[in-house]
């Protein structure tokens, strides 16, 4: 049996770890609330955007527009949104798996645009080429960042460097459920719904020119939505992971307390036996 001193030392070490996990849980709870507010506020923008774009596409039908056709040359590009910090359970691994374990993707056909250093490292280890790396965006995602990325990607698309653009992020359903999601950004695939209550929508400028201007905005809004949802998911995942760690530590501490008490009792018993035996020998 381990000595009393060893048990005591181990218990205090676990206790200080527990204090850290508890503090981290509190911090990520606060961050989660803030991030969730951001994700909800951006939702109405995105919903309007989606409706408008599907409305336009329903009207123009099968038009040969550059953003609606896959590029003929080039690789696939994927924006991989992960976090810069660990200790978030399986969060980073789960979203990176969408890229690294995708059966249809080979490392040599895919260019990774990494946002968040953890996902970048996982993809790099799996042999994917990291085309661009923007860990700083994840600290405070802004719409300007999404526009910046959109412009770079669309330029590469128009130059024929890439043929398709995907977005891998973690969708935030609620505090405990975060779903790694892979969506295709380009060519645009929107369910061409019915035009709203039969009213004919007019465009100024005309359809195709309007598409030129609206589709980049649509993609930027998707990327922005991905960023803010990923941020909320990251903090949610970390909160859960830290909550589990805290309760595991609690359990370990209880076990160790029991072991410690037993060890103490047995040492007292032994001392007593020795004293009594000694006294018997003298008497």
């Amino acid at each position, binding site marked *: 049996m381990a000595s009393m001193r060893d048990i005591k030392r181990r218990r205090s070490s676990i206790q200080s770890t527990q204090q850290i996990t508890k503090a981290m849980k509190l911090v990520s709870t606060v961050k989660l609330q803030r991030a969730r507010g*951001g994700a909800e*506020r*951006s939702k*109405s*923008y*995105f919903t*309007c*955007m989606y409706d*408008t774009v599907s*409305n*336009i596409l329903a009207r123009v039908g099968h038009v040969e527009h550059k953003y609606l056709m896959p590029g003929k040359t080039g690789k696939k590009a994927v924006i991989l949104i992960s976090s810069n910090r660990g200790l978030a359970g399986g969060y980073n691994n789960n979203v990176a798996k969408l890229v690294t374990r995708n059966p249809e993707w080979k490392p040599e056909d895919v260019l990774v645009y990494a946002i968040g250093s953890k996902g970048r490292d996982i993809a790099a280890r799996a042999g994917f080429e990291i085309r661009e790396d923007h860990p700083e965006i994840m600290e405070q995602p802004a*719409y300007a960042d*999404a*526009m910046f990325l959109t412009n770079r990607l669309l330029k590469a698309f128009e130059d024929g460097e890439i043929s398709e653009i995907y977005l891998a992020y973690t969708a935030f359903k609620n505090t405990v459920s975060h779903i790694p999601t892979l969506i295709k950004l380009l060519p645009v695939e929107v369910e061409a719904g019915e035009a*709203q209550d039969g*009213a*004919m*929508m*007019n*465009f*100024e*400028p005309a359809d195709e020119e*309007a598409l030129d*201007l*609206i589709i980049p*905005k649509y993609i930027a*809004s998707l990327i*922005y939505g991905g960023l803010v949802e990923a941020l909320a998911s990251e903090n949610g995942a970390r909160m859960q992971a830290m909550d589990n760690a805290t309760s595991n530590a609690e359990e370990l501490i209880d076990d160790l307390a029991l072991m410690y008490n037993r060890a103490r009792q047995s040492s007292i018993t032994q001392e007593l036996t020795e004293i009594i035996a000694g006294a018997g020998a003298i008497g």
Partner: protein
Amino acid sequence: MAENNGYRLRVVTPERVFYEGDVEMVEFNTTEGEIGVLPGHIPLTVIIKPGILVITEPEGKKEAALHAGFAEILPDGITILAEIVEWPEEIDGNRAEAALQRARERIANRDSQTDLARAETALLRAMARIEVLK
């Protein structure tokens, strides 16, 4: 149709819902020129150019600087998806003046390197900001 019973205006940005309410008229700048929208307008989608957004409410007028995005106009309401839109009290007048100067200089001293479209947009933006502050 053209009665003023609740023409709905929504201005949404990626970060927030900027404005939501019933209005009498909305005026703003588009790529095709300035337009004023009254209730019962035919369905129309327009691309926004930097300019002033004038919202006429039953109680009075409100102004804001509207820089980029697009608007979906329907007979019973209008939705503006704005990338950047600001109330006058959110604008830094000195910064706008400085930006106006910079943009003017860039256009005046332009060479083959200058991104003229960008400089012009910056100029329009600064002008819209300053105009709204007046």
